[in-house]
């Protein structure tokens, strides 16, 4: 007995070591399934606050570049709106139709402006932390976009901060379509460069060319249709030869991301509920 006790006291650090390693591995493997794990991410109150201070300082120095980008984008959009509203007025002989449509679209979606307070590009699973949380109306599964295009999807939200899965994460999976041609596939990232992603499952009979713009399809309940994602730069065959796989150069500059918007879709909860009901009824059908 005394020998045993002596042994234990002499090698106590081995037990401490094992215990700590077990805790670490539990954290490592349960991060995705365990809801409370938001406390061990950069969206918790303390880390969030420190990152927010840091982001305040940094954003001050990048204001000029952001301004330039926004102005460019504004000019482009204004041109587009002018052209479209002109052609629409020509066709319908009604000058108020554009305003009415716009109001109807904006009613459905609510935008929550947020600031990026931490961001990474070099990992396999990158995450973005933003400074809006449950109290500001952010919930998990909401879409996040910036002035230049899609950013990602909210993964976990704490009181004042939330963790976003950007396109640059192996878990990310966003339904997208080719602008003007309507064929859709899903967007995913496979590591490596932070300005490229891949669009898979485009059918073989689809017709498109390099340089076509990619936008969100609106089929998932997360993003409304028509948010810019990027441009096609290269076309590959998928490994099974049944579909095309497109390389996309992303329009969002993830290395220089400051201001984003969380998209709150009023109708999405209804859609999700409908999907759940459909899945449940399918399950019941199978059991019978």
């Amino acid at each position: 007995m005394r020998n045993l006790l002596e042994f234990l006291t002499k090698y106590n650090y081995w037990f401490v070591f094992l215990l700590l390693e077990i805790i670490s591995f539990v954290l490592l493997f349960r991060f995705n399934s365990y809801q409370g794990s938001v406390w061990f991410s950069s969206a918790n109150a303390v880390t969030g606050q420190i990152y927010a201070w840091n982001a305040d300082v940094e954003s001050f120095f990048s204001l000029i570049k952001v301004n330039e980008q926004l102005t460019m984008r504004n000019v482009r959009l204004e041109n587009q709106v002018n052209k479209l509203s002109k052609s629409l007025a020509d066709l319908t002989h009604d000058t108020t139709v554009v305003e009415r449509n716009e109001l109807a679209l904006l009613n459905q979606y609510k935008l929550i402006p947020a600031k990026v307070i931490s961001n990474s590009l070099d990992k396999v699973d990158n995450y973005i932390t933003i400074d809006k949380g449950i109290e500001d109306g952010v919930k998990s599964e909401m879409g996040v976009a910036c002035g230049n295009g899609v950013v990602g999807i909210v993964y976990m939200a704490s009181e004042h901060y939330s963790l976003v899965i950007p396109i640059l994460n192996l878990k990310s999976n966003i339904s997208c379509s080719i602008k003007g041609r309507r064929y859709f596939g899903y967007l995913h990232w496979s590591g490596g460069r932070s300005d490229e992603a891949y669009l898979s499952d485009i059918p073989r009979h689809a017709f498109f060319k390099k340089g076509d713009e990619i936008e969100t399809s609106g089929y998932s309940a997360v993003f409304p249709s028509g948010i810019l994602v990027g441009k096609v730069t290269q076309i590959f065959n998928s490994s099974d030869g049944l579909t095309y796989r497109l390389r996309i150069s992303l329009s969002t500059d993830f290395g220089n991301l400051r201001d984003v918007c969380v998209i709150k879709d009023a109708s999405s909860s209804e859609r999700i509920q409908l999907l759940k009901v459909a899945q449940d009824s399918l399950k019941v059908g199978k059991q019978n």
Partner: protein
Amino acid sequence: MTINLFKRALFFVILCLAQVLVLNHIHILNCATPLLYVYFVILFPRDVKRWGILLWCFFMGLVMDTFSNTPGVASASMTFAALIQPSILTLFLHEDSPDDLKPSFKTIGVAPFIRFAVIIVVTYNLVFFSLESFNFFNWIQLLECVGGSTVLTILLIFAIESIRKK
């Protein structure tokens, strides 16, 4: 004793802030990031209890994980580095070294200290990047990351040690 504890806590906070706010943003060639917080393991004196080193380093890893969203990766590798630190340190000591020796250029010499630091940093980086790339295995990238980060970390530690000497 209390002063030592306070000093270590202060060092802990400074290292954390430097790593999180500055060094984590450095990615040379998309892989090499200086991981200066390993310096924390290297500096533990000989007379600190082994379970104490383990606990301190585990918490350092946990804080790093929380900030960079890599749950468990840094804490597991820091704990491992803390386990081997005392055994490796004894390899570089003479018989007449004092019991409360704190590893630095002055106490064990420049070359042995660098060798000691390299062993710890390489081991740490190997464990860290292997765990991080668990589901995304790519030998060449793994070795690049380990090599690049080790070089940067050692350079930083060398620079800081040289300043401290004076």
